[in-house]
């Protein structure tokens, strides 16, 4: 097997704001050509990490090396080889997509025809060439996201940081961006992605680091991480919340310590759902069950297992249904 070369090496990277520790001594290494995800809820420290790696936030402690250049001591060299697509939509909406990309090309030192060619390449790569000369104001959410990435890849960076590249997008636009990110990888670009969508981390990443409260709590390939949970999860939602404890006690009588209450739902951990389900149904027959759901291991469950919290709790609490409404409302 080919020897893996290191693209990014993060050593004890820490950022404190007064007493608040936003990023707490994180360590990880990203290989060249890899897609690496930082997965965690909002406020976990993902954007702060990207800010430090892209040289605009000074680490309180620690350092990181991008292709060997220190983000503290060699900022200028780092800036030349990275492309950053921030979480904010930064393109000028009064200008066209082409003008926005061209500005970036020129800021990276390309002149005249070369700058124009680079811009054309970036826009074509992101499937935006057809609308390149329209004002950004007229772009859809998905197009704006793709434009942000086009602006970040115009100088052909070796390493690209994508901070929540699909936040608030519909499934189709999200898939489109995923495809393009995979294309970037094929070109040999190293991608560091942050997301709080576990599907995204799972679909794209070679490796994932789960981050929470500024700390990396697990790191590995999606399969390695999923192997951390054994068996399935069963979620039970009943109409009367005051019956929850009663049900939990009954389930725990069959399999000790398998059921817990999370917000207004019951979570049952089991080695095998097919064996437990008949018994569960017997127990639940006396109650008004709204939903019974069996979940196979996924990164969401890994996060829950490691932290005791939902990945998305900032957005919609534990209420999955509310969460779906929220995201649907954002799809436009």
């Amino acid at each position: 097997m080919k020897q893996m070369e290191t693209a990014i090496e993060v050593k004890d990277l820490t950022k404190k704001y007064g007493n608040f520790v936003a990023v707490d001594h994180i360590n990880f290494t990203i290989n060249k050509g890899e897609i690496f995800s930082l997965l965690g809820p909002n406020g976990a420290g993902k954007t702060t990490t990207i800010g430090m790696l892209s040289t605009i936030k000074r680490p309180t402690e620690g350092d990181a090396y991008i292709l060997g250049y220190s983000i503290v001591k060699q900022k200028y060299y780092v800036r030349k080889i990275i492309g950053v697509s921030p979480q904010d939509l930064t393109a000028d909406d009064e200008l066209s997509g082409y003008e926005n990309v061209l500005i970036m090309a020129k800021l990276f030192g390309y002149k005249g025809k070369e700058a124009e060619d680079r811009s054309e390449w970036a826009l074509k790569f992101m499937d935006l060439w057809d609308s390149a000369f329209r004002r950004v104001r007229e772009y859809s959410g998905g197009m704006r996201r793709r434009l942000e990435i086009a602006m970040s890849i115009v100088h052909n960076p070796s390493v690209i940081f994508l901070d929540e590249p699909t936040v608030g997008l519909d499934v189709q636009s999200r898939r489109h961006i995923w495809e393009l990110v995979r294309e970037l990888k094929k070109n040999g670009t190293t991608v560091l992605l942050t997301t709080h969508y576990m599907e995204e981390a799972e679909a794209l990443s070679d490796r994932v680091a789960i981050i929470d409260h500024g700390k990396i709590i697990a790191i590995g390939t999606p399969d390695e991480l999923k192997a951390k949970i054994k068996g399935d999860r069963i979620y039970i939602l009943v109409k009367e919340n005051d019956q929850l404890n009663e049900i939990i006690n009954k389930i725990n009588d069959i399999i000790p310590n398998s059921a817990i209450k999370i917000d207004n739902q019951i979570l049952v951990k089991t080695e095998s759902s097919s064996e437990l389900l008949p018994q569960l149904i017997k127990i639940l027959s006396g109650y008004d069950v709204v939903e019974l759901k069996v979940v196979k291991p996924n990164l969401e469950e890994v996060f829950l297992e490691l932290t005791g919290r939902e990945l998305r709790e900032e957005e919609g609490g534990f209420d999955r249904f509310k969460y779906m409404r929220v995201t649907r409302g954002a799809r436009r």
Partner: protein
Amino acid sequence: MIQEVYTLTIRELKKWLSRRGTFVVSLITPLFWLGLFGKSLNFAQMFAPTNIPPQYSSLISKYVDQQLLNLFGTTSYFTYLASGMLVVFGFFQSVFGGTNLVFEKRLGYLNRLLMTPTPRSGIFLSKVFGTLIRILFYETVLILIAWGLGIKFKPGLTVVNILLAGIAIIFVAIGFVSIFAAIAFNVDNVEIMFAIVNLINLPLMFASSALFPLKQMPSWLQEVAKFNPITYAADIVRYNLVGTPISNYLLSWIILIVISITLFVIGMLVSINAMEKA
């Protein structure tokens, strides 16, 4: 460095040109000042003799004109105000040129720039240049409007006079766009930024010779006005365009340039520092 500054300055100007609304709105305020305030505060008319026997009437007119001439250096207050407004308008535009950085910060555009190898000084300079070019354009329009409304230029006005007036305004603008950019780099909240702008704007405008002559002011205000670059620029502009005498022309230039360059240097250092720290 040159390419980056050029690229970002062009970006500023493109954004400005694509917002046709702002362009018109920006001109409305000085137009109101000139049209309403300048034209209605017609002192000669206020003291025009009526119902007085003609033999006294011309005497009174002469007296009023003499007083106005003493006070404003011209018999037309409109001419006095219009020449001062040219400076005030340049000042206001420079303040807003610096202030709009707060929005670019909020939108995340500044962060995007900071993640590129663009020199930090280039980011600052493009802000200054973009603002100055806008101001030059507006001033040209404004001077034409003032001319249409009847400003009395001095006899024998030359292109050199107009250029010198323009340069004086540019120096005021350089100083203030730098300072306000520096403030904007250090303030994240839009409301706080505008509170600061209001706090500084109006006092600076009134504590200058732009709207009224210094000798009409209480002595303490005169002292304040002596540190205000707007005063010197207004005097220089008036000297060149209207022909109002000035006590020491060369000294006015020196003071204006020194204050301006000082503000520019301070502004640039503070801005770069703010970009580097984070």
